[in-house]
């Protein structure tokens, strides 16, 4: 941070990617294409220190994610670490490898909420997308155990061409499983999803129809089921307020301890991300040049700086600008004022007609 720059507002939420290990192989995984291996993961004590530093910095909620966070045998101790620091803990899980006994241990440790991923509303669709036979039945059983233990449950479903038609069934499933919240999250094309865009991108008219269905269900189920939707932005006119602004409200910690403003930030060349092994979290949040690179509005191109929406969408997404224009400092090309806007729509239309096979998320083969 240059002298005289005001300290940034403290973050509210932190995504703790505890591991990249996962029994599922979803082709839209938000993890980077190059996955971190177990031997490089942070240990229990370091995570507990990071949670304490996060709480001190102003973080209120921690999202324990992965990969599959339950692949960590110390998950109970990590939840206890969140509790000790007064943090609200949210477990983001695939729900296929947590026994009833372990779930009870996680609840006893003080877990606040469970978010269960669901890849489709039927076993056929779910298990093909996750590339794990039997996953759907395990998820259903796990959901029943979550509500039985008394923990609040959210279902999260990433939406794309192969399950877009199941939205009404996903709503019914959420009700049947006793979820209080349902996230209908259209795939965002970074990492694995970007590599699989030709296999995942839905046609425009189906996307619009799906948005109406979600809106109607939300209205009908008010007070019963909260439905949050993440919109598919390639077909949009205005960019999403990605992360509510770079380095503004939230941060990610990767399995090996690097601290990022968002999942995909490491795709941007020229940014050096500091590690919790070497720096305190507040120092990283305040002083890491990578966090300051796109913070606020000073970095924006002129067209964004003079736009009324500059503090609404914060220029959209830096990683998307990079992926689609080659320059992370461009305005998000989804924006109708971007010279690339038409190209993005054309890309989506072409990809929606492709019949690509999934490139499933896997660890690359180890070099000999």
């Amino acid at each position, binding site marked *: 941070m240059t002298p005289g720059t005001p300290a940034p*507002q*403290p973050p*509210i*939420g932190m*995504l703790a990617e505890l591991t990249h290990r996962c029994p599922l192989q979803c082709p839209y995984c938000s993890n980077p294409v190059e996955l971190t291996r177990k031997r490089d993961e942070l240990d229990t004590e370091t995570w507990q220190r990071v949670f304490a530093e996060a709480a001190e*910095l*102003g973080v*209120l*909620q921690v999202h324990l994610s992965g990969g599959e966070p339950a692949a960590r045998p110390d998950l109970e101790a990590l939840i206890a670490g969140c509790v000790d620091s*007064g943090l*609200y803990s*949210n477990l983001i899980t695939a729900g296929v490898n947590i026994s009833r006994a372990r779930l009870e241990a996680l609840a006893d440790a003080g877990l*606040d*909420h469970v*978010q269960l991923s669901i890849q489709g509303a039927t076993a056929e669709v779910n298990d093909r997308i996750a590339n794990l036979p039997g996953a759907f039945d395990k998820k259903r059983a796990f959901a029943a155990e979550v509500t039985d233990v*008394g*923990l*609040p449950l*959210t279902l999260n479903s990433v939406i794309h061409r192969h399950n877009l038609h199941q939205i009404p069934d996903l709503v019914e499933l959420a009700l049947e499983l006793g979820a*209080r*919240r349902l*996230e209908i999250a259209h795939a965002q094309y970074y990492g694995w999803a970007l590599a699989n865009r030709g296999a995942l991108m839905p046609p425009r008219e189906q996307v619009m129809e799906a948005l109406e269905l979600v809106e109607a269900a939300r*209205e*009908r*189920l*008010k*007070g*019963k*089921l*909260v439905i*949050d939707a993440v919109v598919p932005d390639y077909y949009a006119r205005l960019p999403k307020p990605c*992360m*509510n602004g770079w380095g503004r*409200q*939230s941060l990610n910690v990767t399995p090996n301890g690097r601290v990022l403003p968002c999942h995909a930030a490491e795709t941007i060349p020229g940014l050096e991300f500091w590690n919790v092994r070497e720096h305190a979290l507040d120092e990283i949040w305040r002083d890491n040049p990578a966090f300051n690179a796109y913070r606020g509005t000073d970095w924006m191109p002129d067209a964004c700086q003079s736009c009324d929406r500059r503090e609404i969408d914060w220029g959209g997404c830096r990683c998307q600008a990079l992926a689609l224009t080659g320059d992370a400092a461009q305005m998000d090309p989804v924006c109708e004022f971007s010279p690339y806007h038409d190209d993005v729509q054309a890309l989506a239309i072409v990809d929606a007609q492709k019949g690509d096979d999934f490139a499933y998320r896997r660890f690359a083969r180890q070099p000999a």
Partner: protein
Amino acid sequence: MTRTENPENTELDTGGAPALSETDVVKIPRGVRLREDKARGGWVLLAPERVFQLDPVAREVLSRLDGERSIAAIVDDLAATFAAPRERILIDVRAMLVDLLTKNVLEVV
């Protein structure tokens, strides 16, 4: 990601929400927590993927939701504590609770 909301600023829409009577008991369910936010000042209600920033009035109401006292009892308490007209408090409390019930962050016992 976490969204921040201020219940006082959100438009009140009771469509589809349960009617709330004075004898009802409302509670903060498991998975929702009321706590102080020292970094930013004030109090917050933490819910799944949501943070509600509370004004002092909202905090006074929510901190009285012990799962036992009825809305009527809480309104009596607030009217006495703040020497304010009961009818006015009842309207405000009911509006706030209905709003948060609609968002699924409170429960009727």
